[in-house]
């Protein structure tokens, strides 16, 4: 199992698309955090009264950067099914992977563990750096670092959990579709501000049980939905979605021809 995890980790960090996605996801998030904090500071310097939203801004941008780990979750399994060119034999990496690790459960578990680890590290780095940048840029407007951290409380951890669970859900769906296009489109579109979940939440209160709406309660304070879950309940709902989807994905992966 440890060997399988090491192999999957090596595969993941060598995927060019994974590298681009993580660098862009984290980089873009930090740039956006920095620019929005800088403009916030200019406004505060100009005499705008503190409306209590400044702290929310710190955790708002990572909600966009989650696209990086969505791509990660998609390509970690989608790349296995992409055939090489006909000149190179048209083979798919999944055949090699299964020859090396014949136990399908072990292979899938190794992939999920690697994905959770990498996205967890990425999320921690992004959220942590975002908080540091915000503190530096806001200066005296933010209060002491201790106060800010106390005010943020468990929300940074919630944001990290949101990234990891989102990556795992994207991964599980791609295991079922075996092709990255559909999950990429669905999950990225749903990350945008015009998300389907958000629209559905206007129509039915059941939308609060959707994974992204429930999970966002772990870190968002002003989520624009009327009916919300408690943060912990939201996290559990999202974790349940991830667990069920992973279980279905495992069932499919173990039984289907490669």
């Amino acid at each position, binding site marked *: 199992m440890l060997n399988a995890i090491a192999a999957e980790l090596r595969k993941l960090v060598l995927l060019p698309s994974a590298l681009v996605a993580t660098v862009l996801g984290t980089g873009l998030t930090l740039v956006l955090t920095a*620019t929005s904090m800088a403009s916030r500071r200019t406004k505060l310097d100009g005499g705008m009264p503190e409306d209590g939203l400044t702290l929310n801004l710190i955790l708002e941008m990572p909600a966009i950067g989650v696209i990086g780990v969505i*791509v990660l979750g998609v390509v970690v399994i989608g790349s296995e099914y992409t055939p090489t060119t006909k000149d190179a034999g048209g083979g798919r990496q999944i055949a090699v992977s299964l020859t090396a690790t014949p136990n399908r459960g072990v292979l899938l578990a190794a992939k999920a563990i690697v994905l959770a680890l990498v996205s967890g590290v990425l999320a921690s780095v992004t959220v942590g750096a975002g908080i540091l940048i915000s503190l530096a840029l806001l200066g005296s407007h933010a209060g002491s670092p201790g106060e800010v951290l106390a005010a943020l409380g468990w929300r940074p951890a919630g944001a990290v959990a949101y990234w990891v669970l989102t990556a795992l859900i994207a991964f599980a769906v791609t295991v079922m579709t075996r092709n990255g296009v559909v999950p990429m489109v669905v999950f990225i579109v749903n990350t945008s501000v015009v998300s389907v979940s958000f629209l559905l939440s*206007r129509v039915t209160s059941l939308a609060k049980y959707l994974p992204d709406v429930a999970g966002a309660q772990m870190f968002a304070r002003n989520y624009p939905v009327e009916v919300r879950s408690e943060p912990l309940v939201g996290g559990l709902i999202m974790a349940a979605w991830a667990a069920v989807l992973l279980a279905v994905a495992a069932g499919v992966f173990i039984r289907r021809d490669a």
Partner: protein
Amino acid sequence: MTLRNTVAAELIKLGTLPGVLAAVCATVLLPAGLAAVLAAGPPSAMASALRSVEYAQAGLLVLGVLAVASEYAGSQIRTTLAAVPGRMPLMAGKLVAYLLVASCTALLAVTGAVLAARLADGAPSSDVDVAGLLRAAAYLVLIGLLGVAAASLTREVIGALGGLLVLVLVLPPVLRRVTTLADYLPGAAGARMYQQGPGLTPLEGGLVLGAWLAVALACAAVTFAGRDA
């Protein structure tokens, strides 16, 4: 081959690609369903239909990307170039074929969305703004062209599609909080063609989107003419 034959060949390719077929069906059916769900709530039928167009653009992006990138999944591009050695005629043929398929898809998508929204709406007397629908369809066709250009540059699906979805759907509202330059992003500018909002007028929005497309397609044409297949 004449341009007509090239277009016919490209149309056969598009018509027989399973991915394209799925993208067209999803682009027509999903916004209709979404518009119906929305219209059952407070928004009017027309507003619901235009809202669902925001999702249809993801389908057109997929269509544009697949129309080009599928050539590079195997060695089909070499077969294609053996049949149509002129690179510019081939690109023109691809663009015309894309425009034909995308126009039908976009028209069906907006018509389906407005019909579904009217059926679901409690007050069927609400007006249908035909010009607005046509502008929405035109926007959908144009934004898909961005997919054609991006896929010509990257020669694969995931990168082109991921980058475009972020550029068109995700970035505008986020960047808008920082700078009004965000109004000039292709998705934000193009949306003004059919939907009122902050920033540009419909004409300006169309022109800005046109400028993006001109640059993107010019880059695609230059690289396609110069690069080894």
